[in-house]
């Protein structure tokens, strides 16, 4: 468990560094093709080979990390913020506010998010901002439900009552006393949301709905599909990178969960 957590952390740190310093890490320009198309791995300095247009797969994979990480992390972060806000309001106020917000949450939770995301992007056009927005809109309900449940329990806790009796205004009690106490599981959920968002972004890219101006792992797999017979490396490397990244974020969530759960501490 612990060793796997370190391995996941190492992979994610390497990935972030590769994404930030992509031009230095990649020895070729991922956007410019060459006459050397469909070269197998380890020929002429192309570690991962080249694609049908002669672009270097290693460079594309490294630059693709940027899109995946930006989409995954921003969508999870925004989803967590919206989810905490909605859940805290619903759990704190109860009554009509609670009922309305929970109905809304339930509606968004039941929507088939992957198919909806595909159709929204197809209707409104591609773009990394839109992808982040769509994933956020569809990612917050789970956080909201969890936060609501914890806030509703904490509302009557002695330390909260004490703050209220001490004359602290309700909104400050909520923000300073209650919300910080429910954030631990939100972080775990956010790590899982990053993994889910990266998978969703890859699926959109595979459906040809990614940003046409940026390389992404999903779009690489879309192109690889036509060349499976002649160039296996076009599919193997970007796909394995997605799998390892998703695995690492899921592991991170598991490790955080074990670390943050007081019962699991030993």
């Amino acid at each position, binding site marked *: 468990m612990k060793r796997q957590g370190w391995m996941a952390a190492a992979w994610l740190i390497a990935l972030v560094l590769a994404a930030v310093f992509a031009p230095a890490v990649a020895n070729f320009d991922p956007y410019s093709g060459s006459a050397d198309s469909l070269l197998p791995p380890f020929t002429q300095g192309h570690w991962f080979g080249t694609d049908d247009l002669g672009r270097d797969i290693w460079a594309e994979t490294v630059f693709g990390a940027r899109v995946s990480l930006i989409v995954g992390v921003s969508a999870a972060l925004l989803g967590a913020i919206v989810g905490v806000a909605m859940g805290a309001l619903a759990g704190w106020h109860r009554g009509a506010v609670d009922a309305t917000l929970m109905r809304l949450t*339930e*509606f968004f939770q*039941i*929507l*088939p*998010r*992957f*198919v*909806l995301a*595909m*159709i*929204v992007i*197809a*209707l*409104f*056009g591609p773009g990394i901002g839109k992808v982040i927005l769509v994933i956020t809109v569809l990612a917050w309900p789970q956080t909201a439900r969890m936060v609501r449940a914890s806030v509703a329990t904490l509302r009557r806790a002695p330390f909260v009552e004490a703050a209220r009796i001490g004359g602290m205004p309700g909104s400050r009690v909520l923000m300073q006393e209650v919300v910080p106490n429910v954030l631990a599981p939100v972080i775990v959920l956010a790590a899982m949301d990053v*993994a889910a968002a990266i*998978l969703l972004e*890859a*699926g959109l890219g*595979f*459906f*040809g*709905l990614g940003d046409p101006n940026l390389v992404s792992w999903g779009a690489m*797999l879309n192109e*690889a*599909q036509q060349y*499976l*017979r002649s160039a*296996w490396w076009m*599919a*193997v490397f970007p*796909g394995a990178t*997605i*799998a*390892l990244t*998703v*695995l690492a974020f*899921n*592991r991170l969530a598991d490790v955080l969960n074990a670390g943050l759960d007081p019962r699991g501490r030993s």
Partner: protein
Amino acid sequence: MRRILHAIPLLLAVILLNYGLIAATPGDPVTALVGDFPAPAAYRAQVRHDYGLDKPVPIQALRYLVRVLHGDLGYSFANRQPVVSLIAGRLLATLELVGTALAFASIAGVLLGAVSAQFGGGIFDRATRGALTVGYALPEFWVGQMLILCFAIWLGWLPSQGAHAIRGAAGGWAGIADGLRHLLLPAIALSLRYLALIARVTRTSILDVLGANFVLAARARGAGSIRVLFGHALRNAAAPVLNTIGFNLGFILAGSALVETVFGWPGIGRLLFDSIESRDYPTMLGILLLVSVCVVGANLLTDIVHRLVDPRVA
């Protein structure tokens, strides 16, 4: 009963969301109803009139709602066919793929989870859990591509595209065998994530009850460990497994769209991919509506069956 009443506003909201997407589409909303084609002006005017697009928004929304409730999802100009019949023609292929994948994921997942729980903490358990975590992280469309590489291209054992041989469908047993050969790889690709999920849920719920009184009682009566596992503990896993499938149906159908695209499977997912490519908006929206209704229905059904299986949840 209250659950059913609860599902009705959700269904109406889902239909209105579809209308909202049409109304919010950049440019002329008629385009969202016709698709991005050079359709004749008379036809566009007809659509504008039929959907009351010259009327105020609430009336437009109401008209759309009434049309959908009458089973009218519009006309696919790209395919010269009503969307409903277009979708109906593809439904069986998707049901075949999704049904097979879910059946496989459930059976294999429950067995794996049960055996893993039985050997809790041992080598087998740890190896299985590691494999399941990996299985859950794999994008199903990439799994599909890797299966094609291994079993269709390198080994040449199985076909990589379509639902049956191109050269005329063989009849009788040969036809069934051919269908199964085509079904095998896409079904495995689609099932892997849910197999992992189901195995994990099964393992946890069995570990939860292995120390429970009724299991101890069964042991005390002399029931062997296999009997305890399959006769007593496994029953407890039924409800969580059912929930896993029911509440993930939206993802399963989306996964099916991706897998169908990889394998050229002639189902709804492939239709979605083609309609996105050809900007056939009414077909896209029709599929979204179908999937949304399926998900609402699956949630409702899961709740009802859950109550029947597990009397504690009343």
